C-alpha cells in the first residue's frame, strides 16, 4: 500500500510531552479531543494546518520522555499517517506500532517542510517527490511486523490470545 502526504518537519528529541501535553492527556481518554492539541507547545497552529494523511518528519530520538501512549494515539487521531525519524525512543516506538501508526527509521536530513512524500509501507520505501529522493527505512523486527499487520496489539491479542512468536534476531 502506498500512502501519500506532506511532510511536517520537526527537530531532534521531540518528547511525548511536546506531542501531547500532560495537562491535556490526564483529563480524558477521548483521543479526538486530544488530537486538537498535538504539538501545540511547539507550534500552536500545527493541528489547523494538518491535512489527513500527512507525515511528521523528525530528527533523532523522536518520542523521548514519558511512556504515555496518548502520544501516538493523538497523532493518529489527528490524521497523521506515520512518523519518519532518524531514530525513535523505545517506548514510543513500541506504542506507535502497537497502535498501528507506522514509525519509519530513515535518514530524514534532506526532507524539508511541505515536501510531498510517497511511502510504500510494506517495502519500507520512501520517495520525496518534491526533491526526487529515494530513501529506505530500516526493517522492523518480525514481531513488530506481525503486530502491525493485524492493525495493532489489541487486534493481535484478540485474535491470537498470546504472543507466540519464534525467537529470532532483531
Amino acid at each position, binding site marked *: 500500500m502506498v500512502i501519500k502526504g506532506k511532510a511536517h518537519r520537526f527537530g531532534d528529541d521531540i518528547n511525548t510531552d511536546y506531542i501531547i501535553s500532560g495537562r491535556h492527556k490526564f483529563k480524558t481518554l477521548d483521543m479526538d479531543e486530544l488530537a486538537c492539541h498535538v504539538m501545540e507547545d511547539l507550534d500552536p497552529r500545527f493541528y489547523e494546518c494538518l491535512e489527513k494523511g500527512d507525515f511528521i518528519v523528525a530528527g533523532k530520538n523522536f518520542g523521548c520522555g514519558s511512556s504515555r501512549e496518548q502520544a501516538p494515539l493523538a497523532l493518529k487521531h489527528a490524521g497523521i499517517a506515520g512518523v519518519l525519524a532518524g531514530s525513535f525512543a523505545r*517506548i514510543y516506538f513500541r506504542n506507535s506500532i502497537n497502535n498501528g501508526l507506522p514509525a519509519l527509521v530513515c535518514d530524514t536530513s534532506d526532507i524539508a517542510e511541505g515536501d510531498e512524500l510517497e511511502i510504500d509501507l510494506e517495502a519500507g520505501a520512501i520517495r520525496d517527490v518534491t526533491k526526487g529522493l529515494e530513501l529506505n527505512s530500516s526493517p522492523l523486527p518480525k514481531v513488530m511486523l506481525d503486530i502491525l499487520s493485524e492493525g495493532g496489539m489489541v487486534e493481535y491479542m484478540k485474535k491470537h490470545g498470546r504472543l507466540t*512468536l519464534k525467537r529470532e534476531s532483531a
Partner: protein
Amino acid sequence: MGKTISEKILSSHSGADANAGEIVIAELDYMMAQDGTAPLAIRSFEGMGHDEVARPERVALCIDHNAPSPLRSVSQLHDIMRRFASEHGLELNDVGEGVCHQVMLDKAHVVPGSLVIGADSHTCTYGAVNAFATGVGSTDMAAGMMSGSLWFRVPETAKVTVTGKLPEGVWSKDIALMMVGGITADGATYMALEIGGPAISDLSLDGRLTISNLAVEMGAKVGLMEADEKTLEFFKGRTKAEFQPVRADSDAVYASDLEFDVTSLEPQIAKPHTVDNVVPVGEVEGTPVAEGLIGTCTNGRLEDLRAAAGILKGEKVAPGVRLIVAPASREVMLMALREGLIEVFTEAGGSVLCPGCASCVGTHQGVPGDGENVISTANRNFKGRMGNPEAFIYLASPATVAASCIEGKIADPRRYNG
C-alpha cells in the same frame, strides 16, 4: 561466552538462551500502571476480548500522578481503575499511598533478579535493586495483564563504572545529572546500563535509586546495578519471597565501557528545556527562582528529605518563593513525620503535600506562573512539563533546591555544609 545481567534475566524468564539483539517472550514477575496510563490499559485489555487477568497477584495499579483528583473528569478515570481492580482482584494503591515507583519498592513487588514492567517510563528505577525493570505503554501493559508475558528485544549493555569519593554537599542526583549530561538524551537508546563501581557501592539504596531513575533520560531500557548487603538489608522484613540476585559473568560482552570519576564533582543543574543540558551549579548561580519542588520518584525518599531538612532547619524560605515538598510514599511520610522533618519544612515556610507526583507532571499542585523559574528534584524539565510552557524548569539535588529556596535564587548547597 559470558552473559550480562540483562541476558541472564531474560534467559531465565523466557526459557531461551537469550543474547543481545535477539527477541524473546518472557514471563513477567510483576506489572504496574498509574493513573495516567491505567485507564487506557484497561480500555485496551477490554478490547482484547478476554476477561481474565492472567496473574492478578502480580499486578498493581497506582493513583499518584493526579492524586488527589483535581477535576471531575480525572475522578471518572480514577473510578475506572478502582472498578477494574475490584473486579479482577488487583492491588489498588489509592490517593496518598504515594508515587507508584516508591510504593512498588516499599511493598517489595520488585526484588533482585525479577523481570518487571510498568506503564511509566521511570520503571527503570528498580534497576537499582537488581531487577530488569522497564517502562512500557498502556497496550503492552494490557497484553501483559492478559497473558502474563511480553516480548522483549534483548538489549546490548553499556557498562558504566563510577569511581572516586563523593565530596561533601554533592549527592547521587549530581552523579545522575552528570551522567545524563555526558551520555546525552539518546546516548543509551535501546541499551541496558549496568552501573557499578566504588562510588555506587558507597551510596545508600535511596541514592542508587535516583541514578537508575534517570536511566530513561539517556534513552536506556534499564539501569541495572548489582545487589549487595545494602540491597538485601532493604528487603529484610519486607518480603518472605525468595529471590536470587543476578551478577554479570566476568566474561560478559559489553557494547561500551564508560567511566565517570566523582572526586571533583560539583553540584549539577539541568537547565531548561532538556535533561541533558547539564552544567555545574556555578554557571547558573544567582538565577532567581519562584518555586522549588522536593519530592518525586527521583528524590522523594527519606535520605532526600533529610538532606533538604538539614539545610532548611533554622532557616526560612525567601519571600516570593514557594517550596513544595511531597514525600514519595506514605511510608516515607511517616518516617519523615517521626523524625521531625515535616516540622522543619513547615517552620521554614514550605508546603508539605500528600505523597504522590505533586507538581512534576503539570496537572495540579504547583503549576508555575508565566516566566517563572522552578528548581526541582524531578527528572524532567521539558517545556510545559509542569503545566505551563511559559515557565522554566531547572533540575537539581534536594540540597541544591533547599539552598536555592532559602536564597531566592539558584545557590550552591556546599555553602550550607556542616
